[in-house]
């Protein structure tokens, strides 16, 4: 696949490295001369020095043959403009953009940007949960953060400790995927008793995660 990346920084460098190692043809467009020179030495990719929102630069870079365009600059108006230009003017089928201001996610998807990474929200919620609750680790999120899988360790004084799942009033939209107890896996059923020290896998919507943890562990939010 031919993939065009627009932007700079460590993110582009590492992303390009991974894509190249998987056999994709990568083009990077960057408007900083020194950065362009530096990565041109390090990567087996086409590096184009120029402004990614200039149609002539994109044409020189080979946008007509590009399968996916990825706009990763730190400015939302540049990312939006580049993606819309690629779709409208050059007929690129798939565009991906970084959204820096979470408020812009709706606009980007409404206008037809194929995939959107809301970096501030993603990073913010990961860091927040790690800082606020040490017993919680976010294992992964799916579909760009729409579903989250979280591991939670039941504390000693948890209201759920010693109760069966049936007794705990957990909303139907929150699913417990498994319990790790002393290294063994217990598949949770209605009659399973929760014990303190259990590592529980919680599958839920990100916004319901806090509720699940409150019910199980009684932490204040």
């Amino acid at each position: 696949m031919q993939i065009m990346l627009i932007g700079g920084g460590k993110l582009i460098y590492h992303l390009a490295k991974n894509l190249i190692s998987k056999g994709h043809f990568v083009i990077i467009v960057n408007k900083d001369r020194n950065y362009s020179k530096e990565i041109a030495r390090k990567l087996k990719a086409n590096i184009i020095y120029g402004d990614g929102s200039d149609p002539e630069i994109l044409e020189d870079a080979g946008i007509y043959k590009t399968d996916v365009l990825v706009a990763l600059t730190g400015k939302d108006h540049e990312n939006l403009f580049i993606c819309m230009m690629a779709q409208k003017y050059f007929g690129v089928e798939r565009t991906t953009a970084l959204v820096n201001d979470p408020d812009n996610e709706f606009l980007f998807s409404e206008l037809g940007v194929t995939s959107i990474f809301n970096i501030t929200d993603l990073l913010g919620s990961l860091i927040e949960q790690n800082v606020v609750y040490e017993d919680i680790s976010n294992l992964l999120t799916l579909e760009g953060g729409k579903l989250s899988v979280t591991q939670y360790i039941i504390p000693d004084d948890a209201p759920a400790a010693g109760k069966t799942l049936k007794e705990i009033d957990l909303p139907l939209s929150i699913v417990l995927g498994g319990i790790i107890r002393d290294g063994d896996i217990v598949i949770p059923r209605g009659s399973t008793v929760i014990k303190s020290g259990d590592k529980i896998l919680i599958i839920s919507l990100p916004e319901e995660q806090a509720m699940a943890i409150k019910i199980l562990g009684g932490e204040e939010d």
Partner: protein
Amino acid sequence: MYIVIIGCGRTGSNLAGLLSQKGHDVVVLDKDTYSFNKLPVEYSGFKVEGDTLEHDVLKNAKINTADIIVVTTGDDRINYMVTQMAREIFKVPKVMVRIVDPENTYMFEDLASVETFSPINLLVDSFIKKIERIEG
């Protein structure tokens, strides 16, 4: 009419002053307070300072109740995003936008309720008209 003007540069400040004198309700928005100095003394509308691309700033300027917004910043990419925000999110019935590089005009084509103005095209047109008049 309630008119919101985005960008208080030479174009925006001039336009804001004239519209306000004609009795329209005008709000002008810019990220730099200093640029409000360009507004003429007769200007009697509001000034909102802030990043035009932030939803809260646009809400502050009550853009959702505007009859017209005029987008005049010097960056086509910012103008494009503000235009789309005004259309898609705040449902402004009429957007007028200044285009710096005439090559970018196609980005605004077939957007309902959007009208574009390119100073360079206007200038070139009037040159050509003058020249043809001399010829004829």
